[in-house]
């Protein structure tokens, strides 16, 4: 199997992370970037935990939400290939996320002011 891979990689793809997709396009598979993204995700998680452990302040919640948003965007962009894939998938993801965020904000807004 290993030999197989070697010959395969050498014969078809000179830099071994460039792949030809059906339809004549080719794409570079950024192994380094994948790992780099993982490191960033881990660091952001540590950052989040530190923020949460510190005494609650005005910025605690916004910072937490920002960090988790950043993490989610990283995963979606690089691991789920939204950066290179068909554009319509962005729409498919963003519309429900937007609707959901608005709904959640609404649900949060109702109880305290209401009655």
């Amino acid at each position: 199997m290993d030999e197989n891979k070697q010959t395969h990689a050498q014969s078809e793809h000179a830099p071994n992370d460039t792949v030809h997709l059906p339809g004549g396009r080719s794409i570079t598979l950024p192994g380094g970037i994948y790992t780099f993204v993982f490191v960033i995700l881990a660091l952001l998680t540590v950052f989040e935990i530190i923020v949460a452990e510190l005494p609650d302040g005005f910025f605690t919640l916004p910072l937490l939400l920002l960090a988790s948003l950043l993490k989610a965007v990283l995963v979606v962009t690089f691991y789920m290939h939204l950066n290179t894939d068909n554009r319509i998938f962005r729409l498919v993801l963003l519309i429900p996320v937007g609707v959901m965020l608005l709904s959640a904000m609404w649900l949060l807004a109702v109880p305290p002011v209401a009655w």
Partner: protein
Amino acid sequence: MASVVSLPVGELRKSDGKPIMLRDVLGWSVDHKVIGVQYALIALFFFIIGGSLAMLIRWELLTPALDLMANGAAYNTLFSIHGTVMIFLWVIPMSAAFGNYVVPLQLGAKDMAFPWLNAFAFWLIPPAGVLMLMGWFVGPAEAGWTSYPPLSTMFSPDGQTLWAISIHLLGLSSILGAINFIVTIANMRPEGMGWFQMPLFCWAILATSIIIVMATPFLAGGLTLLILDRVAGTAFFNPAEGGDVLLWQNVFWFYSHPAVYIMVLPAFGILSDVLSVHARKPIFGYRMIALSSIAIAVVGFTVWAHHMFTALAPQFRIPFMITSMIIAVPTGIKVFSWLGTIWGGKIRWTSAMLFGLGFLSMFVIGGISGVMLGSVPFDLHVHDTYFVVSHLHFVLYGGSVFGLYAGIYHWYPKVTGRMLDERMGKWHFALTYIGFFFTFFPMHMAGLAGMPRRIAVYAPEFQTWNVVISIASFVLGVSTFVLLYNMVWALRNGKVAGPNPWRALTLEWATSSPPPATNFVGDPVPFKDPYGYGTKEAAAYVEAVEARYGTPDDVAQSSKPAPAETAGD
């Protein structure tokens, strides 16, 4: 002006499509045509059940006291199951039936994008329906189709749990079906059919599917919480334990307001096709109709709280009044565009067209009362009264069901190869139109005069209206059987339809009736404009289709020796 027209060519062929038999319908099939018929049959079955429940409701309401039903709870189960069955097991599956049968044909495709998924989505419906009806063995849901907690979580019998599971399944079925429709419509249009050459029925199904994918999961989430509250001891909706009764109302209407458009947009689509074909005139303002579907879908997501005007904190009511009223604008565009379509046309009074016109005329009343309900101060008076009952039936029966009836008369020849009887169709229309109007219009009066909805015991002063309503509703109930008899009768005795009895230009008519297993022989060629009536090219196209697939006489000739034994419709 280039007047080149693409035409389907070839030898005269006899119809080689096989009618769908009962044994096809009872078994697993991944053919979208069979699945469409399966949807239609199960929807009609539940239509009869929901209708019978409505008849019981009207029987009970003939007198102000509780007489037919043993107690108030028994009456509550009637309208709870009536509402749920009519919405989730009749209107939505019936729309899906047309979607399944017609959309791939209109797109010139061989099948849906995911045939197996399509069949799977359908087969979720029978168990869901069984669960819903099984409620009667354990005490059915009695909290209304809206099932507001704490009534639904703490006071309703076990049937409420079955009800929730059943709707969960139906929601899943809808989502899977909708994903299938979106992919099919987006990816499988033939060459030469851009977005704006699509038949309007496809536009309507697309808008509906987008709403389903976005909104149904809200219901799924809410139902999950409801089931957990009922069986696992959580307290999402129980204020005594830190829950919130408005949470359900919000989540439920996040889904259920858009669901109104899930129910009515397919009927809009059917209407656009039917009016244009039977008035022999292009759709007036095609783009405006297509885009207003999308506009309605989008704005429809921002109006849910108008169902909660009397529960909501006052400062939140006004924004929803504004968005609710805005919906009147795209809806108005549609109504006037349809009027423009029939204006100056060559109108044939076919049963399909009559129901189309009936739709227009009844839906307008629902639209007007809808705008009134959007006005907060007035809604404070009529909220949760018979005025609302009237409004929703004008929209859902006068709108959706009239549209579905029109669709049945319009596409039945394509499905079975035979025409429905026009005389019976006209009787059906007359009884339905009159019975419907006198059932639901007086409800406005009862509501304004002060009759709340969902009551079995009412003040004697409302009895006159209720007797009128009940008698008219029995006429309406009888009218349904005219259609059902017609559908069974026409299977054997209907006139042979031929490929294109309405001389329509959309692709589903450019193949034999019923279509062969692969829908088309060779690649279908769409006419450049699905509604381009009134031109020589259109006439030439229609003639070419008949030349290729045979006139009704040819078809009747060729199938004379042994009339096929058709058991399903």
